[in-house]
């Protein structure tokens, strides 16, 4: 199953290495990972999408991450009410005749054209991974020259529905 795990960490050299290293050592496949600074100085947030096959293994990922000295908090937010977004840059083969047609395709996705050249067009799209996938699939027939994706970044919504909040505790302390 695909899980979205967020970790807030001390922004210290080697932290990312320690986290990816431990995931690799314990044989967890990283689907995507994104890192950036947060509202607190010296604290970064890592969003990891991992593929795990058993809940016992999932518990191990969160515990092993939590165990790291520089990791402040680990949450598996997959089953929570979350906002999750990624950004993709897609460069496709295009010419002046095709531009309008492509514009028509990307508009419902709220994607925008960010660069135009004689024979190519660069598009920026943000959203859930599924939406990004869908747009990529639609654009593929035109010929994708280059594709870059940031990977997912996510956090919990301001308000959580009551029922969902209960079933995601892996704490041993209660």
């Amino acid at each position, binding site marked *: 199953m695909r899980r979205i795990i967020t970790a807030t*960490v*001390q922004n210290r*050299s*080697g932290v990312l*290495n*320690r986290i990816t*290293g*431990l995931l690799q*050592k314990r044989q967890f496949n990283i689907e995507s990972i994104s890192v950036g600074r947060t509202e607190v100085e010296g604290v970064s947030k890592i969003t990891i999408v991992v593929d795990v096959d058993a809940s*016992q293994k999932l*518990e*191990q990922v969160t*515990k*092993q991450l*939590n*165990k*790291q*000295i*520089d*990791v*402040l908090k680990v949450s598996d937010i997959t089953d929570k009410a979350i906002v999750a977004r990624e950004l993709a840059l897609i460069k496709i083969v295009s010419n002046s005749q095709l531009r309008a047609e492509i514009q028509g395709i990307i508009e419902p996705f709220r994607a925008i054209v960010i660069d135009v050249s004689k024979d190519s067009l660069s598009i920026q799209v943000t959203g859930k991974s599924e939406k990004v996938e869908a747009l990529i699939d639609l654009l593929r027939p035109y010929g994708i020259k280059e594709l870059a994706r940031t990977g997912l970044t996510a956090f919990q919504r301001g308000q959580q529905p009551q029922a969902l909040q209960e079933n995601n505790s892996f704490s*041993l*302390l*209660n």
Partner: protein
Amino acid sequence: MVKTKIKYEDQEQVVKKTPKTGADLLIESLIDAEVDTLFGYPGGAVLPIFDALYKVKESFNQVLARHEQGSIHAAEGYARVSGKPGVVIATSGPGATNLVTGIADAMMDSLPLVVFTGQVAQGVIGTDAFQEADVMGITTPITKQNYQVRSIKDLPRVVKEAFHIASTGRPGPVVVDIPKDLAANPCEDHYDTDFNLPGYQPTIKPNPIQIKKIGEVLATAKKPVILTGAGIVISKASEEIKAFVEEHQIPVASTLLGLGAFPGEHPLFLGMAGMHGTYAANKAIYECDVLINIGARFDDRLTGNLDHFAPSAIVAHIDIDPAEIGKNVTTHIPVVADAKLALNKMLKQIKATGDYGEWVEHVERNKQNFPLWYNNPETDMIAQWVIDQVYKTTKGDAIVTTDVGQHQMWSAQYYKFNKPNRWVTSGGLGTMGFGFPAAIGAQLAAPDDTVVAIVGDGGFQMTLQELSILQERGLPVKIIIVNNAALGMVRQWQEKFYEKRYSESVFSIQPDFVKLAEAYNIKGAKIDNQADLAKKLPELIAYDGPVLIDCRVLQQENVYPMIAPGKGIHEMIGVKP
């Protein structure tokens, strides 16, 4: 420049008074951390540090091993026996990479180490400079935490943090990588050492609700067993475990590293469990209805096939490391806590209401009927008998160190430890060459105790260069080489599982270990029969100085009982008929 005269031994030297450097600051930090023994090996990148050490020679007991691996295993032995962090200093590049085995070993066996490595100067880091290695990258997966100091103002704080992290919670190795320029350059007198580790707050107090649950299952249990692990030794909870076991009359099985946590000669002690555990201990775990694991991590060598491990038990697991709970064995009552605090709470909160009389009779019958056993030949020696003799001669009171393999398992089986911190072995990583240097560290930590290094002829040859230290430091370590001219455990597996194809496991040539000892100015003895050993061992153990005893034992002996790989804990072979 002010010139002061420092008198050292016979030579008079003139040392220029120089401004304080990063290296001086490091030394001050070590003194603040109450370090008394240093296992260091000099080299280019740590020249400033060793220069600073030279000026404060009397502050530390500095031990120069002959290989960095020797330094770190000695530090591990020191840590295991003293309970304090072992401190190692090595140079950059090869100095640091030679420590890797010891760091990984300490990580697996939860030993507190603070390891300082020199690094090339900051200006050339990343340029593949002479003796540069990516120590941070190499040691990340095998350390509890690692640091590269990049600003001198961080150094005292980092050192303080390193000692704190290494020795609290679940102990482990911490590496501090120090670029040469930081150590060499002048610095200010004082920097702030306050640290804040919001991501590191180990839970040490047990949740009373969980302790209550243990009480509830014990009240209705018929066949409970306690499994003692190294966590009890680390948290110094031997008194507490003994009190709890005696009050409740629950039989005890131990892990390899837990030996000594509970008295080995106690009537309720069933022995070590696991691959080469006793019949009584393994059978008790297989049959029990409640299993209370205190400070063990359910290692695969203990559990065997997980499907058959304590199959009908309610499992309670007390561990300071939450990640260990539920990792291998499904746990019904998780308790994240320090073993001592948990046991204290259990003593207070859980009253002895259960009646396990029948069960105790049953497991003790197993203990009587199926003890560890060996067929002793007429005159030749076998390793089991040799270790039994060592046990009897030292009255079970020696500090024993081992490598990994047959001699280790036989030591665990036949040497009964009644006290904690006297059993120093490489458990998780299973490191050959560990035992002898570890004995050096153990002897330094406990100068008045008898320290016996029981080592294999294979493992000893991996780190025998440390013989130099014994005479140099006047350490009366007793080395017992269990010499079967083979890599015994490899040979055993080849015999059992590879149709006796003894691929590279039997030595065709052996050094003359006695001459080797003499080359290092150490008393050596070669013994190849029972009568000789029985006669000479007491005086060799009592000898006031280091001794190497080359015990020639029969090669074909195997360690039994044994759980074959993939088999359950109840499927032992080689149980006493």
